[in-house]
Structures are given as C-alpha cells and as structure tokens.
C-alpha cells in the first residue's frame, strides 16, 4: 500500500486522506489497490469485445493467439478500441455544446414571446460583443434585433450538429494551410453528429480493418469536437454568460467554511451552476441559513463546473478530480449538486457516511437512489434555489465532531480567453496579438505550452502537472492551462502574477511588464477550443509561420484518464500540435504498428504527433526540444536551455 505522500503532493489532500483513513472511508486510492493487478490485455488495448464471437485477446508475447475469431489482429483491435474512445470523448463535449446551443434557442424563443423574467433570474446575452462576432461568422445580419439574431444563430449552430456535407463553420477559423491539409486528407469534419456515428460504424465487426484508416476517421471525429462541439460550447457560453475577464479567486479544500452552509457544484456544465451562483446570494436563502445557525452560504466548485464559475464570477474552487470525495470527507459539505462527466459513482456511498446530500440534475447522469432534481432551462433559477434550499436545511444535520477542513487555500488569477489574452498583451486600446508574437520572435517567450487534462489515481496526484509546468516556465515557456491541470497548478501558487519569480528571465520580464501570471488559466476542459482559436490568431498576426504546426508550441496531458482527454489529444495532433500523454500511454502498446503510427507516422500526414512519457522532467525536455526545433525552422533566435 502506498503512503499518503505517494498518493498526492497536495498537503490539503494528504490531510483529508489521513482523516479518511482514520474514519475507515474507502477512497479511489483504496479502490485502485483492490483492482491490482489490472488486466494487461486491457492496458495494451488487445482485448476485443466488439462481437459475440469474442471476447478475444491477442497474446502480446507472440506465442498464443495472434488474431481474434473474426481474424482481426492486434492493429485492428487496438485501433478500433481507441476509435470508440475518441467517439465517446467527442460525444461528451459536443453534447455539452448542443445543450448550450439549445439554451440559446430557448432564450431567443422566450424573449420573442415576451416571457422576460427579472434580469437576474433568467438567461440573457451578456457577452454581446462575442455574440455579435459569432453571428457574423455564421453570416447573420447583426443589425437585426438581438432576439432575432439569437434565434437565427441558434438554428445555424444546431445545424452544425446535423449537417451531412461540407465543412463545419468553425474550421474556417484555422489557418488556410491547415484547412487545405484537412481537405487533402479528407478529414475536414462535415457534421458533428455524423462524424461520431460514422466513426462508431467503422468499428463495428467486419467494417474497417486498416488501423491507419481507423485513425484517420478518428481524427475527423476529434476535429468535429475541437473545431465543432467544444468550440460551440465555449463561444455560446461566453455569449450567454459573458466572456470571462481576468479575475482573482481562491483554490483548494480550505475554501470550505466552517460556519457557513457549504454547497458544492461539480461536473462540467455552467448553465445550471450559473443560476446556483445567483441563488446562493438570494436574500431569502441567506436568511434561512442564518436561522439555521450558519453565517451564510458558501458556494464552491469541483472539476470543470468549478472552472466555469471561477472564470466568470471568481467563485472558489474546492479541488480537482481526485479531491471530489475528499471534499465530502471534510464533513463540512451540506450539499453537492452534480451535472455530467467525471462524477465518481462512489460519491453517494461516501456522502452517506456524512450528512452530505448528493443531488443529480441531468437526465443523462443519475445515481440509483439519489435525489434527482432535473434541470430545466426555463425554470433554472427556481430549480437552483430549491436545490440550495435542501443544502441550507441540511446544515443542522452537520456533525461538528466530524468536521475538519484543512487550512490550505491559495490565491489564483483565472479568466483568460483568446480575447482577454489579446487585451492584456496589447493593452486596452491596441488589442492585438502583435506583442505576444514579438515576444516569441525575440525569444523572450521561448514558446507556448498547453498543459491540460485530468488526475489519475494510478499516479501521484498533481505531481506531474506541477513539476512539468514549473520546468516549462523556468525555461521561458508561457503555459496555457485548462481543466483539472489548471487547478493542480493553482493550488501550488503558479497562477498568480507573483509566480513570475519562478519563470526564466525572458518570460518573467513579459509577465511583470503586463502583470500576468506565467501560467494562464483558460477555463474548463471544453475550453481547450480557446487554445485552438488563440493559436489561429497567432498565425494570422504573422511572423510565426503559416500553419498551427509552425508555432513553437507543444501540448501535454500529464495525468490524463478520461476519454475526453483522448479526443482532445487527437484534435490537437490533427491540428498539427506535438502532444505528450503523460503518466500512462494510450491502450495501444499491444500493437506496435499502431503505436509507431501515433508517435511518428502521423507527423508526416498532419504535422503533429503523440508522445508517451511518464517522467515530468523528461516531458518538459521533450516539449522544449520540440519548441526549439520549431524555432529553428522559423529561423528565430536560438535559445540555450537554462
């Protein structure tokens, strides 16, 4: 059994893990140990359960069976398994995008029928600038009334899901050269739903047997997420809820308050949690909380719902993926409301050991026997209020002897977007990517790194994220972050302007001049699309090549675990980005051909490729080496490694 220090580098996590052990609460780390050894066939990707002639397994040592009952070899099996994961990952983010687009349709409908509630209690279009820019992209006349634009825009956005031919509108945001590559390879995504369905079709028994072709279709599906579903989610959320601007916040389990009603929002979609933010300030509920003996209502978040409400309102973040159970173990959480994705099925069992009420809100994500209050866009405020009320009323059930909130919390700055990076670097009156491009060209900023992704119980929590990011900024690489990776680094104090002291001299100079941290928090994992658009703006600005693959940049998901991460990896690689998956490789090692194709063959076709590496210092070296290679290709100033 590994020690608490081997489980996490985060002190707050360690403290609550100790509490969990003392109280005999089984967490993900215990469940992981009970799973050992994990099946090698699954890890290598050579177990096939596609049809009922199986399950079949390929002996990676070469002595046993080398093909399944149907004749599929390790290459086909591993590629099909991977493709199915890409389809699931794309479905998750794109379906999130669909719901946001449907919210836009609903609000345009309500407004045109005069069903305008009080401003605070309904959805509005708060990011009007972005909304209009988006409408223009879809060829809508923006001089029309707002409701009409919204109706037309929602229709066109929803069409992106059902389109059968042509290309997704957002692919036009990519540099011309990149669009040509996609067209030439036949991987330009046509319709969001079509790419998922078609990819799944190709993995049915006896359809696509060529691992390269399976991966090609996988890339098209991933692109339909990155340049489609995810991008719609981000841009429409920014339109409805307002585009984030840099905001200060606090992070880690210490944000839970001993004398307050603690309500946690957990999951990924901000539409309901946005209303929860408002409802938590409802005077009626605050009065009720006080009547129950609490000082007030404290709303905090876990995972990407946290990132969403942090980005727009500075709501504190209680923790990232591996801290969701531990937040409950503090004994101080009255209620956790969850929506979709990355919500551990174990939560209810842990909640039942304390007074915590778990409430599910999405028709897509329920637990047997758990209170379900289904979210409806039309009655969002009312629903959010009723859920929070349950939490407030639960305050009296809190067992004070079981409460132990770690004191650790850290400041952070979040709220960077492709627009706000623009403003920060160029100043309010000359918003432009020019200063960023100049800084990269001069070598003050060596290059850019996107460090994103999850936590994984298999590996020391937060260690890979923070070690990698520290090393990158030390070497003058500006780091862009999303998701649980951003939360990991925030907890270690890397997301405040003062963190510039850990940066190399060039990056430090830029950060201090502009007043930004060396690590920029761009939002939730669906917001990885922000990195794609920001990179496209960099190319548009000029001086750093003609394609995304020319930029001195690299991507990494150091502690990934979800299928969404795989899809994100694929849309980055298919967009020309060198992308490292840390900690554990994809489940493809049982097929040498497929693994070689992903880690080298792909570069010839799309300009990006995967790398698998389980040492954060080595990851940093690989990313820096790639950045320097790209700098040389652009004939930029050489940089010596510090």
């Amino acid at each position, binding site marked *: 059994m590994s020690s608490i220090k081997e489980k996490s580098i985060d002190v707050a996590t360690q403290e609550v893990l100790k509490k969990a052990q003392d109280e005999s609460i089984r967490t993900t780390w215990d469940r992981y140990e009970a799973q*050992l*050894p994990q*099946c*090698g*066939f699954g*890890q290598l990707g050579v177990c096939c359960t596609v049809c009922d002639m199986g399950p079949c*397994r390929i*002996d*990676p*040592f070469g002595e046993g069976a080398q093909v399944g009952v149907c004749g599929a070899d390790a290459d086909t099996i591993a590629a099909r398994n991977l493709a199915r994961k890409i389809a699931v990952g794309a479905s998750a983010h794109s379906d999130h995008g669909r719901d946001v687009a449907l919210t836009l349709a609903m609000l345009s409908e309500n407004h045109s029928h005069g069903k305008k509630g009080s401003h605070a209690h309904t959805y509005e279009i708060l990011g009007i600038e972005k909304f209009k820019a988006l409408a223009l992209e879809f060829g809508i006349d923006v001089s029309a009334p707002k409701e009409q634009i919204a109706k037309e825009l929602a229709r066109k956005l929803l069409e992106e899901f059902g389109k059968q031919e042509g290309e997704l509108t957002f692919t036009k945001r990519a540099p011309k050269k990149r669009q040509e590559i996609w067209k030439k390879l036949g991987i330009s995504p046509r319709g969001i739903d079509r790419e998922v369905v078609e990819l799944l079709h190709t993995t049915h028994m006896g359809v696509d047997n060529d691992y390269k072709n399976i991966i090609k279709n996988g890339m098209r599906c991933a692109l339909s997420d990155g340049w489609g579903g995810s991008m719609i989610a981000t841009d429409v959320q920014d339109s409805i809820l307002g585009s984030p601007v840099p905001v200060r916040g606090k992070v880690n389990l210490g944000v839970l308050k001993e004398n307050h009603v603690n309500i946690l929002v957990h999951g990924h979609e901000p539409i309901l949690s946005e209303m929860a933010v408002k409802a938590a300030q409802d005077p009626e509920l605050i009065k009720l909380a006080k009547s129950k003996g609490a000082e007030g209502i404290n709303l905090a978040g876990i995972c990407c719902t946290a990132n969403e409400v942090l980005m727009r309102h500075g709501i504190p973040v209680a923790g990232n993926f591996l801290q969701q159970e531990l937040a409950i173990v503090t004994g101080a959480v009255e209620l956790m409301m969850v929506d979709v994705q990355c919500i551990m099925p174990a939560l209810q069992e842990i909640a039942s050991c304390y007074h915590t009420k778990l409430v599910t809100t999405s028709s897509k994500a329920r637990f047997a026997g758990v209170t379900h209050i289904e979210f409806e866009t039309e009655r969002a405020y009312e629903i959010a209020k009723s859920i929070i009320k349950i939490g407030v009323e639960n305050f009296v059930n809190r067992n004070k002897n079981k409460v132990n909130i770690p004191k650790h919390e850290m400041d952070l700055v979040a709220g960077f977007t492709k627009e706000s990076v623009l403003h920060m670097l160029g100043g309010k009156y000359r918003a432009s990517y020019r200063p960023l491009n100049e800084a990269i060209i001069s070598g003050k900023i060596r290059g850019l790194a996107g460090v994103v992704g999850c936590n994984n119980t298999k590996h020391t929590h937060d260690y890979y994220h923070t070690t990698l990011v520290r090393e990158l900024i030390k070497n003058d690489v500006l780091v862009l972050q999303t998701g649980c990776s951003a939360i990991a680094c925030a907890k270690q104090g890397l997301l405040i302007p003062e963190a510039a002291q850990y940066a190399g001299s060039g990056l430090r100079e830029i950060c201090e001049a502009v007043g930004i941290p060396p690590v920029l928090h761009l939002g939730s994992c669906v917001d990885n699309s922000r990195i794609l658009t920001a990179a496209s703006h960099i190319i548009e600005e000029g001086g750093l090549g003609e394609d995304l693959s020319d930029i001195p940049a690299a991507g990494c998901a150091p502690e990934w675990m979800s299928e969404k991460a795989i899809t994100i990896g694929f849309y980055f690689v298919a967009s020309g980005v060198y992308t490292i998956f840390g900690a554990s490789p994809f489940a493809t090692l049982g097929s040498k051909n497929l693994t070689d194709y992903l880690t080298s063959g792909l570069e010839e076709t799309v300009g990006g490729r995967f790398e698998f590496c389980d040492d954060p210092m080595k990851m940093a070296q690989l990313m820096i080496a790639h950045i320097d290679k790209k700098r040389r290709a652009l004939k930029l100033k050489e940089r010596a490694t510090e």
Partner: protein
Amino acid sequence: MKQLYYDVKKCLGCRSCEIACAVAHSESKELLKALKEEIKSLPRKQVLFSKNNNYPVSCRNCKEPKCVQACMAVALRYDVKLGIVEHDQKRCVGCWMCVMSCPYGAIRPNIKTKAPLRCDKCIDKDEPSCLKACPTKAIIWQEEKVEKI
C-alpha cells in the same frame, strides 16, 4: 511428478486463471451456470501485484508442508505418491491454522463451506484448468526438476 510453474514476466494480470479455477471447482463446470450456484465456487489461485510484477499464487504442494504440520485434526496429509496435500473434510474442524501457517499465503478459507481452499492440480483432469486458460502461456506444467544430492 508434474508441478505448476509461472513465467512472471508473461503474466498480464488478466486473472483468467482465477476464473478458470473457480469454474473448474464449481458444480456445473460452466461459467454462466457457476455464477448461479448457491454456494459460489471460489478460485484456489490468486494473481497478486507487487513492485510492477504480477504473481499468480497457488498451493505449491510442498514436500514438507507447514499446513500439514499445523493441522491439529489431521485433516491434511501429504500423499507422497500423488505429490499433493490432501484434505479430509470430515476431519476438518475449521480452525484455519493451515491458512495461518502457509508461508505463501496460498490457502484461502471458504467461510461458507468451512473448508480451506487449495490448489489440487485438478487431479481429476489431464492437466490443471488454469493452464489452458492462460492466454500468454505464462503458466507452465512440467516435471519437477529434482536436484541430486
């Protein structure tokens, strides 16, 4: 005399041997039916994980078995001819001293039947069931090499 050996480097931890063992010792000898039996058959073999290696662990049928020495009811005895430790359920009092004394942790108690579960090398079959179930041939069934003194 044939014994079970393992090529630890080839063990992928899929636990197919555990399932095959449980099925072989069930009433029905069929996976889907075995799951519905009132007293569930349990595997006599377990794959354990330590320091990046997987170790299939089962009774080694030691020549000087600690479990036989520890059995106060004389329910366990070593059959020299067959080379296996045999268990007489009628004599067993369920004290679990055999479980405690096995240096390999290879005996597990079946609480329901009050019987110690140990590998019997599938003595009623031509070869152990786990052997056939291993997809990487990490389980080896071969004559014991007796070192000459």
